[in-house]
């Protein structure tokens, strides 16, 4: 597979390490209300779609960027790649 890195252009998938579903970005606040349930869901529940899937890839043999890759699990077609940091900020994560 080829992943179009937003900063470095097309790179072979062999340069990357796969982590998993993008929901791993949505880490609950461990001190918040209902943290037990929230962490249960965060740790153990994943969607497993046959089709478009947003997932985390790490450019370990490259610039060490974490990327969010939108990949169709049926065809391996990649429709979007962005820096995970940008998506994390959009989802309201900060310090």
């Amino acid at each position, binding site marked *: *597979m*080829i992943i179009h890195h937003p900063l470095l252009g097309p790179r072979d998938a062999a340069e990357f*390490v796969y*982590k998993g579903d993008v929901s*791993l*970005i949505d*880490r*609950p*606040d*461990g*001190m918040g209300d209902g*943290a*037990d349930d929230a*962490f249960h869901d*965060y*740790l153990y529940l994943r969607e497993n779609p046959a089709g478009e899937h947003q997932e*985390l890839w*790490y450019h*370990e043999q490259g610039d*060490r*960027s*974490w990327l969010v890759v939108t990949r169709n699990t049926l*065809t*391996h*077609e*990649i429709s979007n790649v962005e*820096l*995970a*940091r940008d998506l*994390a*900020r959009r989802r309201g*994560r*900060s*310090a």
Partner: protein
Amino acid sequence: MNQPNRISDGLVDRATALNFDWNGRQMSAHPGDTLASALLANGQVLVGRSFKYHRPRGIFSAGSEEPNALVQLRKGPALEPNTRAAMVEMFDGLSATSQNHRGSLEYDLMAVNDWMARWFSAGFYYKTFMWPKAFWEKLYEPAIRASAGLGKLSMQPDPDVYDHGFLHCDLLIIGAGPAGLVAALEAGNSGARVIVADEDFLPGGRLNAETHEVNDISGADWAAQTVAELHAMDNVRFMTRTTVYGAYDHGIYGALERMTDHLPHSGGKPRQVLWRIYTKRALLCAGATERSIAFGNNDRPGIMLAGAVRSYANRFGVTPGKRVAVMTNNDDGWRTARDLAAKGVHVTALIDTRADAPGSMAGTRIIKGEAVANTRGRKALAQITVTNGEVIDADCLAVAGGWSPNVHLTCHQRGRPTWRDDIAAFVPGGDLPPGMSVAGAANGAMTLAAAMAEAKAKTVSILAELGHGPADLPLPKTSDETAGITPFWHVKSGNKRAWVDLQNDVTTKDIKQSHQEGFHAVEHLKRYTTLGMATDQGKTANVLGLAIMAETSGKSIPETGTTIFRPPYSPVPIGAFAGRSRGKNFKPFRLTPSHKWARENGADFVETGMWLRAQWFKQGPEKGWRDSVDREVIQTRGGVGICDVTTLGKIDIQGRDAAVFLNKIYSNAFLKLPVGKVRYGLMLREDGIAYDDGTTARLAENHFVMTTTTANAVTVFRNMEFARQCLWPDLDVHLISTTDGWAQFAVAGPKSRELLSKVVDDLDLSNEAFPFMACTECTVFGGTPARLFRISFSGELAYEIAVPARFGDSMIRAMMEVGREFDAVPYGTEALGVMRIEKGHAAGNELNGQTTAAMLGLGMMVSKTKDCIGSKASERPEMNREDDMRLVGFRPVDRNVILAAGAHFLAPGDPADMAHDQGWMTSVAFSPELGHSVGLGFLKRGKARMGETLRAYNPARDQDILVEVCSAHHIDPEGERQRG
């Protein structure tokens, strides 16, 4: 030498003779021959034995689809089994032997299997050898293993080298037959970057095997001219002997180039190169493969595909027989009869299954509306019997069952081919791999003119999409031929066995039986009968098998469907996949900065991950490793020892929020760590399990240096980058891995302070000025930058000192020189391990991905007042049970007994089963200081059971002993030494 079947013409160099060896017999050939054409030229009809029944078999095809003629090539370590004779390019001195027979090829003892054929029908593996049960291991399995497989391996290391390579292009053209060459000309002249790959050593495809004219010259000459033209283009890479074997994601193709297989010796060059080709577009021009017709005893040597017979006659100047009969269900079969007759070969009969077949041939017996019912001839064909009862002499029968487009690569991403009734064949379906187009016979354009026209049209449209203007060359002038076909799959009359898959000995009866026994799905049929398996993957058999399956089940062929084609298209040697990654190059080695010095000083090395670390340093009279390790421990604990600990992961952490960040990564508090101090840190996984530990030093307000375990150095850094970029993206913190940047040495033992005071420049190392867990940046040996940490893994007064990696070698030499007056010794990973077990420090055996902080006795290190990775999940009740395992120490009741790791603990008197299991021993060592073996392990309620006696049961090592529970800190439990 005599080549009785060599006839006129052909594209071989008659002026040059080559000698080769077949089963110990010398034979002659010419450059341009394949092993198959040379064997036929020499009249060698019998070339192998079939897989199951050991029936005599001959050459069946003229290409990579060959199911029968599998031979062993070369000798000694270079011996290669299961090589397809039709793909082996002849060279002088080639040596080949037949395979899959006991005794000689002519008198195979295993041929008795053929008489027992009724017991070897479909699924016989699953039905026999069931009883008596005890026979399986001693009798059945060894017997089956001895007869399974075809060729034999040399059992020696492969003497050749293989390489991997990467190529990029705008357009990859797969196949250099008429369609591929037209496409390549068009694309090459447009200026696009083009790669053309063809599996043959002579490009041109069927143009070399037929008598077509192109632009008023012979097709073969036109192909040669075109190839020369393409070779001259800088933007075209023309690759012969290269099989594109797989279509992968995003336009990536796998290709195998056979670089030196056609030479007597590789001369040190790579034998084969495995290419990964990155393409914008690909055009598949892979042509078509002919298939057979099933009739009684249709597997005898001399029965061949009609197109192959034509190839041998036209391209190689060889006739496979003196009296050739042809059986066909289509117009193409007639070409074989005509071409042979034109070369003076006697065609004894042409049998066309179509009663209304057009055409006639002067001087040849034509039989329409009939088929071949049976054949005779023990080791070579002698006669055929026609369904009308007529018996005809023939030493070769050319069978034309129609052509199947080579759709394989179009299906590598689960595309399904579709059936076309007019050509009685599957063609590529609509769902091709992205970027792939198909042209020519591979796409069902079965005539020369149609194939060329389609190739041009597809290329022009691909080039337009890529932004290249078309060269718009005129189409080569050809005459078109007829290609009528009326499907005829098998002869129904008669009770003789009729083969579908020659390689796997699958007959029409097996397919019917499989259906009868409930294997209705085509994928089940394949697995039950082995139809379409092994080296040829059923290239000549699959469609025939499907047709018979369809007929049996009363469905149409498209309803029956096909099995899925997967890469590789044809076999790829494991050596090519391995490339250079073998032996010591299997993976990279990382060497510590003191490696050279260690080698000079008697070190034995051990692999820890990719690192090679000194395991111990043998001195003078020491006989075994224990002598060296015990001495290193005693001398370190009694004086001073030095150990290279560079392999521990080092992560440089800087930024205004560095402390905040660390506080989220580690389970214990880091916010208030003072500058100049080191703290032990425990990391959890997000699910609360203990993950990694190490020390982190605060060198400045916004500058920390973390160490990780050697094993987790890569993943800890990866996970920290994840936390930094994805979880807390606005923290001002930056990470760099500096594992390789700093050479780091542990200096341990009561004399370490004295030694180091002669190493560091102007630094007060007194306990007051530089206490336990202090750190500083400093210089050594008059100005070399360094970092000094007062930390201890051994439990002794100890330091770790780091210098930039380039000074690592001189640092160890200088420290050992300075250390001479203190009798300083180097120690390796074994002594390091002994001392940490004596001291009760957890390491990989304890942090094994199943243990919690509470189990490790580090429950207090998980802060309840902050949110960090893993803190929430670690609070779950099941992970904090009072009666759970706890890390404690063990010693043998009989102090002379040596403990074994992996033992499980039982109460004395309890039976040894899982219900009574109370824990397990994780690490053991012989303590030279205590004079007996010591262990660490997990024990239920361990902390509350000091002094208890338990059974340590280890059936794997045949050990069943009594041990005493004690503190994990076997020596210096109060930690006075390291603080002293």
